[in-house]
């Protein structure tokens, strides 16, 4: 098991190193922050002077080496537009992104698990059909449309909830539903199909035969075995929720990592773009690592192979 963990962590670090390198070079293909900072009427001399004072006129390799050395000390460089350390800027947005991700995940699980179980147990019934129809709608409506619709109904017409912004738990409700809807639909569908497979297994019939109630057989024996693929997907969804939901954050003016990423790209803020890309990659890779390790715990076959 230790060997498995060490190998996995090594992979993770290697991936992050590669991401940092790719991010460094790729952001430089997108254009220059100095061009975005200055108005079009700036003279060439003014542009050169600003570029030099920001250090972007140094040889690329030189910049790369100082960037990588900085990373070792968790120094992501100074954001060009915010005039502050990029790491600090990201950390400032992180709590709100976590709030939103946790709320969205809570919504996802509360809705998807009962829906998935009911649909699987009553397979083929009207209930199943209506759950599956809802799932289809949930999976195929884009977040920005759902968001605007929810704002219209609950903020503009009914005036029950705030239209956007942050500050109270009420502010969290609409963005969490918007963000969680897709995951909820996907997980309900996955749980349904996985549970249907499991419910056909011999051991469920045995459980029933030895006198267990239908509910108990499904939850105690069925759900545990059907949970493996679901755990993987839930893990990856956590990564994607933490990675920032660009559109949801945009629609609800939620100041999280997603919007920061958009800002960094709009401004072509090299250090901040590098830092957000690396951050997103790190979240995914670490969540993946945790999922892999928990898989190994849940299913011994994984660590043996």
């Amino acid at each position, binding site marked *: 098991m230790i060997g498995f963990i060490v190998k996995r962590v090594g992979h993770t670090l290697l991936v992050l190193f590669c991401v940092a390198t790719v991010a460094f070079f790729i952001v430089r293909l997108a254009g220059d922050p100095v061009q975005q900072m200055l108005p079009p009427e*700036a003279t060439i001399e003014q542009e050169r002077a600003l570029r030099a004072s920001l250090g972007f006129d140094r040889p690329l390799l030189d910049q790369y080496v100082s960037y990588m050395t900085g990373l070792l000390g968790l120094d992501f460089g100074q954001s060009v537009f915010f005039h502050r350390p990029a790491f600090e800027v990201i950390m400032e947005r992180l709590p709100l992104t976590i709030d939103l991700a946790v709320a969205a995940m809570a919504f996802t699980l509360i809705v998807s698990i009962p829906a998935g179980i009911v649909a699987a147990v009553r397979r083929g019934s009207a209930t199943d059909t209506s759950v599956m129809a809802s799932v289809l709608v949930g999976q195929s409506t884009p977040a920005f449309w759902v968001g605007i619709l929810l704002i219209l109904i609950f903020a503009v017409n009914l005036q029950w909830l705030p239209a956007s912004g942050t500050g109270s738990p009420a502010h969290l409700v609409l963005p969490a539903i918007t963000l969680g809807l897709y995951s909820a639909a996907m997980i309900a569908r996955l749980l349904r199909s996985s549970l249907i497979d499991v419910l056909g297994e011999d051991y469920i019939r045995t459980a029933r035969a030895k006198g267990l109630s239908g509910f108990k057989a499904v939850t105690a024996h069925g759900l545990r075995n059907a949970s493996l693929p679901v755990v993987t997907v839930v893990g990856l969804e956590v990564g994607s929720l933490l990675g920032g939901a660009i559109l949801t954050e945009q629609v609800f003016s939620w100041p999280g990592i997603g919007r920061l990423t958009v800002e960094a790209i709009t401004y072509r803020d090299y250090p901040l773009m590098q830092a957000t890309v690396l951050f997103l990659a790190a979240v995914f890779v670490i969540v993946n690592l945790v999922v892999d390790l928990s898989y190994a715990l849940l299913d011994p076959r994984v660590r043996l192979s």
Partner: protein
Amino acid sequence: MSVRELPTRRDLFKLGGLAAAALSLGACASTKPSTGGQGAAATALRVSLASDATTLDPHKQGDLPSMNVLINVFDTLTVRDTSDQLVGGLAERWESKDDKTWRFHLRENVTFHNGEPCDAAAVAYSIERLIDPATQSPIVELRLVTGAKVIDPHTVDLVTKEPDPILPAKLSLFGGVIVPPKYIKEKGDEFFAEHPVGTGPFTFEQWQRDSQITLKANPKYWNGRPSVEQLTFKVMPDPSSSLAALQSGELDVVTGLTPDAAQQLGDAPGFKVVTSPGVRTFFVSLDTEEGPLKDKRVRQALNHALDVDTLIKSVLNGAAERTPTLIPKQAFGFDASVQPFQHDVAKAKSLLAEAGHAGGFSLKLSSSTADKDIAQAISGQLAEVGVKAEVSLLDPATFKGRLVSDNRKALGEMYFVGNSGWTMDASSNLQSFVRHDRRQSRWNNPEADKLIDTEEQSVDPDTRQEAFTALQKLMIEESPFLYLYQASILYAVSDRVQWKTNANGTLAMATAKLAGS
């Protein structure tokens, strides 16, 4: 980020239109505007910002969102008032001492929010700090200023290396902000950028990044205490969300509306949409150095082919005014006697035939995705005279990158572009597009170069006006651009607000009044 999160900005705007339509339905249902979702005080004014301020250090920003907040905390030496006149700010009056010196006489007894006096030394410090390369300022207007000299505690001279006739106008926004020397020296640049102290009508209260900025009325403001007690800028990047917030009573002012959104929002009860004249001019730059556009008859023909009035009516819902050249009508230098091109398809066709292009030709018309509709409409009108302009859309940041790149052909034969010219002097409108050695110029005309030199280097208004008049005539004759319009500023305000912006569309809220306050 999962795949579902990735539709383009364009899709978002398209949906914005749909949402705005739905919103107007919604507005009918909820006719009573609430006084504010969170129990806002009667004298609290809430204004939307499309993006957050990048920094609150006025010398380190060059973007309108930051400036819109800062203009309420700081003062500038001169001010462009709501009737677009250049009036005194921290400087009561000014005069040109000689070609290269402007003298400013400062208002007395003005203090910063921390009690520090705002005197000639503070002005000199601010100017020197701005032009110091170590400040890394993106503000470029003061490029000719070499320094500031304190004459007495209330008089200061700004010295330029070449004559700068419009320096006072350039000091009405970005470059003219005065900052407190002692405070910055004591607390440091970083602290100042988070806790700004100015002389302005509002004092800084709190900044929740990417969410909101709160300011409080400055009771000791030299120009009288603002009637609004609290001013909050709420960051709302999505246009349809900010309109929804206006309708649900969470916002009082939403600026930067698109013509589409404004029209669909209509005049629902509780708020109104205001159309106010702006100075941002839009035009198409032509590559006059090669290809069919080298021939001025072709360039004239394309101008005749355009029906600008129809473009304004159908694409912009009337929220613009035709400009004969690149100069808005409020700017110094504008000559009303210069007539715009007449829409005349027959004449356009005969000019094209004369130039040997009777069968038409094809070229590329680049624009930012934000201007997609107008670019496509232009392409459609050009097609009527046989010119096939293929529209190439670029995201705004890429577009700007190419616009300012060293390669003047980076955007192809034609590109649609806007130019703000907030100094309201024609010099700013022509500055980087006309003289052959300027960054965005694609026109080499010695006579135009000479006229630019005259208006840029003379401080005599009559000489400058003559040069501008000649330039406008020359620009019509030579047609190095397709001339279009100056866009109006569209914003929505709740009925409880009385406020007016100037032609620059800045959000100076010192004069805003709330019903009942």
